């Protein structure tokens, strides 16, 4: 793997084209909601302009002390969320293998019983009074991140008559350009529901699904406290600006 880290000067090259055979397509009829929410016409392709090459940057000052601790950020003093205590950690990298520093990561999830703190979730599993399910952090100089939470439970959803989501954590990731913007889901190693899920099944390439499965990482556990999972996220990389006419600068 290429070197991680380093953010000496801002990169301004265009992003590699997205591989839309690797991503799920818009229309995946086994995931019923996609049927009426998928464009039917071809996307308009063009090389990135400044509008896609640039993107917002968020400072560490915005973060609260417990923003990356879902076990405690909604809990009453002295209490904590119920469930299997875990650490999720990894790196945000680009396609060239370089760490992407200073990017905002946001995550959300159900509680240990598979219930979301959202008024549209009517699942009979109860809410945990000490758990809300949202967190965020900003990657370090080497693109690394970590947060603490409880492992979410699977939950049923009205798609097929008996569909269950595998345990998962939603991730929202900013890069340095708005064209890198990505939302995805992290799954857990060994979960037999992964391969039955119509949302996962929208991805046709097995290796692409495996890229969303976090591995149990015994090296990062805290004995007598928490297990750990490793999950690396890869964003679009930038082309080098070799021999390009760039009248807008650079």
């Amino acid at each position, binding site marked *: 793997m290429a070197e991680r880290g380093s953010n000496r000067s*801002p*990169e301004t090259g265009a992003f*590699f084209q997205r591989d839309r055979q*690797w*991503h*799920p397509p*818009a229309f995946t009829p086994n*995931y019923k909601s*996609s*049927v*009426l*929410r998928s464009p*039917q*016409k071809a*996307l*308009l*392709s*063009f*090389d*990135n*302009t*400044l*509008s*896609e090459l*640039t*993107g*917002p940057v968020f400072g560490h000052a*915005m973060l*609260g002390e417990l*923003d990356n601790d879902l076990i405690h*950020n*909604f809990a009453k003093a002295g209490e904590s969320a119920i469930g299997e205590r875990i650490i999720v950690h990894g790196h945000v990298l680009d*396609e*060239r293998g370089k760490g992407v520093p200073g990017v905002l990561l946001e995550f*959300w999830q159900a509680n240990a019983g598979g219930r979301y*703190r959202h008024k*549209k979730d009517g699942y009979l599993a109860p809410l945990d009074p000490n758990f*809300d399910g*949202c967190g*965020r952090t900003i990657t370090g100089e080497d693109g690394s991140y970590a947060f603490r939470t409880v492992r979410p439970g699977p939950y049923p959803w009205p798609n097929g008559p008996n569909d269950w989501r595998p345990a998962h954590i939603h991730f*929202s990731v900013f890069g*340095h350009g*708005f*064209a890198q*913007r*990505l*939302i*995805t*889901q992290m799954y857990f190693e060994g979960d037999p529901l992964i391969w039955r899920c119509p*949302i*996962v099944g*929208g991805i046709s390439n097995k290796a*692409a699904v495996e*890229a*969303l499965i976090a591995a149990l990482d015994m090296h990062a556990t805290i004995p007598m406290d928490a297990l750990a999972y490793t999950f690396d996220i*890869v964003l679009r990389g930038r082309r080098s600006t070799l021999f390009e006419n760039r*009248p*807008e*600068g*650079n």
Partner: protein
Amino acid sequence: MAQSLDRLKESPSQTAGPYVHIGLTPNFCGIGGVYAGDLGSTMVNSETKGERIELRIRVLDGTGTPLKDALVEIWQADAGGLYNSPAELRGTADPNFLGWGRQPTDMETGVCRFHTIKPGRVPFRDGRLMAPHITLWIVARGINIGLHTRLYFSDEEKANAEDPILARIEHRLRVPTLIAERQGDTYVFDVHLQGEKETVFFDS
């Protein structure tokens, strides 16, 4: 055999799902006290330069029904046409304008509103000026990968006519799907995900 050109593969996208608000706009869905406010909900302050405008955006499915669980993010230049980004090398953007905003569509009406400023013009790769525009990124339940599009302004006819991206649209009947209609200080913009009035979405 030649040397390998292997790169890492981008992480595959997955839908944001119906409960995207928990993570991205927790105060909006009743989770108070964790973050001071929802990120991206306020875009301008009294010092921000430029003409104040409101965007009133809806996202409609293939039946014409507004989505009540979508999330829209916008990214735009400041009034002088500069982006507040490290990759902006032409100058320093208005320090009172981040240029980024985020709003959920209303759970009853499906409308989302942004209070922002009208952006200045930004150059295309060859130096020609693009028309003023705002980049939109839309996620929701049922959308497997975030949709990129642009909002242009109905009162910028001349600039729109010379915009290099709008010029790329082969089917000219589809150009108006990217143009928001001015009503006073408000621009009204309906994004059609599918069907006859389908909005032009980008792969860029």
